[in-house]
């Protein structure tokens, strides 16, 4: 009796669980499209109506609240996002991948465990706290070290973003390296490879996809980060001419202005157009990454 009951339950449970899991998978796709749709819909009337796309992409004048003539040029904001992200990538990708190689291949086991805990703790620090560190600690340091007139600028924001993305790059990269079968390592050592040759000639090519994904995840974090850059980059609308210029990013603009924009007004809709632009940018980054990874795979198969 009891057995029959549990068998019946088992028969029922199987499809229920299967469908729940299937639903979870599909819902991710559904949510992405829903978010894109709603962000796009809020900005669409303005995008296809009053917005001058040439001005939008080529003008540095972001004056949505002008009483004389509102202007919606995001060139300076795009330059701001690009410059901070680029600096963060230059700093964080080598550091993050280097840390991954060290933790996975060179580090004694006991040190590895404590190091991983500390680095993962670093990933858990909220972005507002990072922004605060940029504003309070790095700001005077940058002024002191470089003689710049103001310490919240590209350099400050880039360093903060790099610190935020290194833990992500490291932990994803480490997983990728660990996933390389130990037989590869044994074979390389058996052939007389040094440790460095093992890393350079065997592990890096074998874990290429995973390492690329790690780097892109880190860069993705930099592009989308809001609170920290709002506080650490200075929030100034201008095309930067040096690393020490304050800039403003797309995300920070939305964060600081959406609260006070009248719902449904031009300014409000323009901010949603920026949101759509950000989503398209991340789509391009992801698709490019996908193609690159596929390209690598294709070559390997040949």
């Amino acid at each position: 009796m009891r057995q029959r009951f549990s068998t019946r339950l088992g028969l029922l449970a199987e499809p229920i669980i299967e469908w729940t899991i299937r639903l979870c998978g599909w819902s991710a796709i559904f949510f992405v499209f829903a978010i894109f749709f709603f962000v796009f819909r809020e900005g669409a009337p303005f995008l296809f109506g009053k917005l001058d796309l040439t001005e939008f992409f080529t003008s540095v004048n972001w004056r949505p609240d002008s009483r004389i003539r509102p202007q919606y040029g995001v060139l300076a904001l795009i330059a701001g996002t690009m410059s901070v992200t680029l600096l963060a990538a230059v700093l964080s990708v080598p550091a993050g991948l280097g840390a991954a190689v060290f933790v996975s291949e060179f580090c004694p086991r006991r040190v590895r465990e404590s190091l991983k805990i500390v680095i993962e703790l670093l990933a858990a620090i909220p972005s507002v706290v990072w922004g605060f560190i940029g504003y309070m600690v790095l700001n005077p340091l940058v002024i002191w070290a470089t003689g710049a007139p103001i310490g919240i600028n590209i350099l400050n924001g880039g360093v903060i973003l790099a610190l935020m993305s290194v833990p992500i790059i490291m932990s994803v990269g480490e997983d990728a390296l660990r996933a390389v079968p130990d037989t590869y390592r044994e074979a390389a050592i058996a052939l007389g490879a040094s440790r460095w040759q093992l890393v350079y000639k065997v592990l890096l090519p074998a874990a290429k996809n995973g390492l690329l994904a790690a780097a892109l995840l880190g860069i993705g974090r930099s592009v989308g980060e809001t609170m920290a850059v709002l506080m650490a980059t200075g929030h100034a609308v201008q095309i930067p001419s040096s690393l020490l210029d304050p800039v403003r990013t797309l995300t920070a603009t939305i964060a600081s202005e959406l609260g006070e924009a009248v719902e449904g007004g031009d300014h409000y809709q323009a901010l949603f157009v920026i949101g759509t632009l950000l989503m398209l940018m991340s789509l391009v980054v992801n698709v490019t990454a996908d193609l690159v990874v596929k390209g690598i795979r294709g070559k390997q198969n040949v």
Partner: protein
Amino acid sequence: MAFVRTLPVAALAVGAIACGGAQPSGTAASAAAGGAVVIRLTGSDTMVNLDQAWAENYRTVEPDVSVQIAGGGSGVGIAGLIDGILDIAASSRKMEPEEIERATKTAGAAPTEFVVGLDALAVYVHESNPLKSISIEELAEVYGEGGQTVKWSQLGAKSPACAADDIIRVSRQNNSGTYAYFREAVLGRTRELRLGSVDQSGSKDVVALVSRTPCAIGYSGMAYADKGVRALPISKKKGEPGVQPALDTAVNGTYPISRPLYFYSRGTPAPPVQAFIDWTLSDAGQKILQDIGYVPAPRPAQ
């Protein structure tokens, strides 16, 4: 019971200071007050300190009425009034005719305007800055579109603390009431502020940044003067003696940058709301306003 009422006010106040203006939180806590009357008051970031002091003191006058305060900016308050989620919007600018029209539509009656005090905007520089005073004309050249003043030496105020000599303009995000008022007071209605200023999202943030940046100049409410910064005396024309921002100079109108602070009620105020506003305009209420550093509202002739 007293506990239940005090907590949400304190929590909201802390939230308003911490976020410095990101989100409207007007609807948050109306359920917490039990049977007591709740007045929801949200708006101007400049007025948050003042609103809070009024709300705290009003509890001793009218224990059954709890006033819930949130900041966010004049625009947030007015948007809340239009959406019908507030009893009073605190604003440091006049409502636009379009906004009044929309608020009238949702409330069924036009919002009532009260001038509850005056705010003098002070121009702050770092305490090490040797500049004695500044005129409105000079300010326009520093902040205005096409302005030619970019170095402190052009104002005769080169200091060793600011080795780079660049003037770092600290401003507010472009939809704050303070920004709109400063633009009008310094540049009139036909000239824009020059882009590339470092935009902060709160009155306090401007002063905090100037106090950390020897090359900076910034504007904020007179009440926000703090350690590390100096408020410049201001004259209308170059060569005239500067007028120190102070209570008496703002009241008699010799200080050139002072503005009215408004309460807008939702339609005709309900009796408890009217009683609260009457109290803020009474001697007791105006004394509190003066203690914080604002200037009492001009009395209508009696």
